[in-house]
């Protein structure tokens, strides 16, 4: 029986930070992809493998998700995540999450323990507490690199209010 796995860490314009951290990015992607593949070889179901590897990517501050998330215009953290199981078409998503340490684990709670498809904002944060998902203070998610990018963006926008907002 065939098994296979792919992961990504985002797509978009190149930048100085990426060029300066190429090796760290590649080492992290390789390590996490190999971990996921080993889980598949041991017979773990695809749904728990993709949930595990994305929570590892969320924990890595190099990537724009979980710890290392980009800051919004106000300098706040608002995270989105979703999960879907091809076996039974069950799915769950969360949006504008500010507390769950791993938004993907919260999305999976929506998939398994809610009659809804998507929970957002305060409702999603409260659901994390109800479902005993680990929550942290939102300062946990903010990295020096994202703070620096936010300041740069704010200055640019200040000088040029019509500058396209990041992304």
């Amino acid at each position: 029986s065939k098994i296979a796995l792919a992961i990504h860490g985002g797509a978009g314009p190149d930048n100085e930070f990426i060029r300066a951290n190429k090796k760290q990015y590649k080492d992290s992607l390789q390590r996490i992809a190999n971990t996921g593949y080993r889980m598949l070889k041991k017979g773990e179901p695809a749904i728990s493998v993709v949930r595990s590897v994305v929570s590892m990517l969320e924990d890595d501050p190099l990537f724009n998700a979980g710890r290392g998330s980009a800051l919004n215009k106000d300098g706040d953290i608002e995270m989105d995540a979703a999960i879907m199981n091809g076996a039974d078409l069950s799915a769950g998503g969360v949006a504008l999450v500010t507390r769950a340490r791993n938004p993907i684990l919260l999305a999976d709670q929506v998939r398994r323990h809610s009659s809804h498809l998507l929970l957002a904002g305060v409702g999603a944060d409260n659901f994390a507490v109800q479902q005993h998902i680990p929550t942290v203070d939102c300062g946990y998610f903010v990295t020096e690199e994202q703070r620096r990018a936010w300041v740069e963006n704010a200055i640019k926008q200040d000088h040029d209010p019509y500058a396209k907002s990041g992304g």
Partner: protein
Amino acid sequence: TVGAVALDQDGNLASTTSTGGTPGKAAGRIGDSCLIGAGCYADNATCAISGTGDGELLMKGLTGYSIAMMIDIRNMPIQEAAEQVIKNNKWEGDIGIIGIDGDGELAIYFNSQRMHRAWVDKYGKSEVHIY
């Protein structure tokens, strides 16, 4: 944004996507990563897809579901379906996807300057790239 797609020993597919969103986004802006059918989709009958890039494009184009429909209705191989959907999308901007089908065929495609990606294919061969 980060994501994963996988095919397990029982032939089941799954997909996950997670993001901090677009840097400098307006408060309250929701992206494609949490929308089933846009940045995240999985159906054993067609494929599992995780998307990234300019979220507004993946939302307007329902990228994940569109790729699955190209496979289902036109019987297109997954890589070709991914390329068709991204090349033919109606708006200017960055889109990247990773995908996998029930035969373990992978689809990796992006139109941006870079996409951080790694995979282990059905032959056990692994690769990792940024550009």
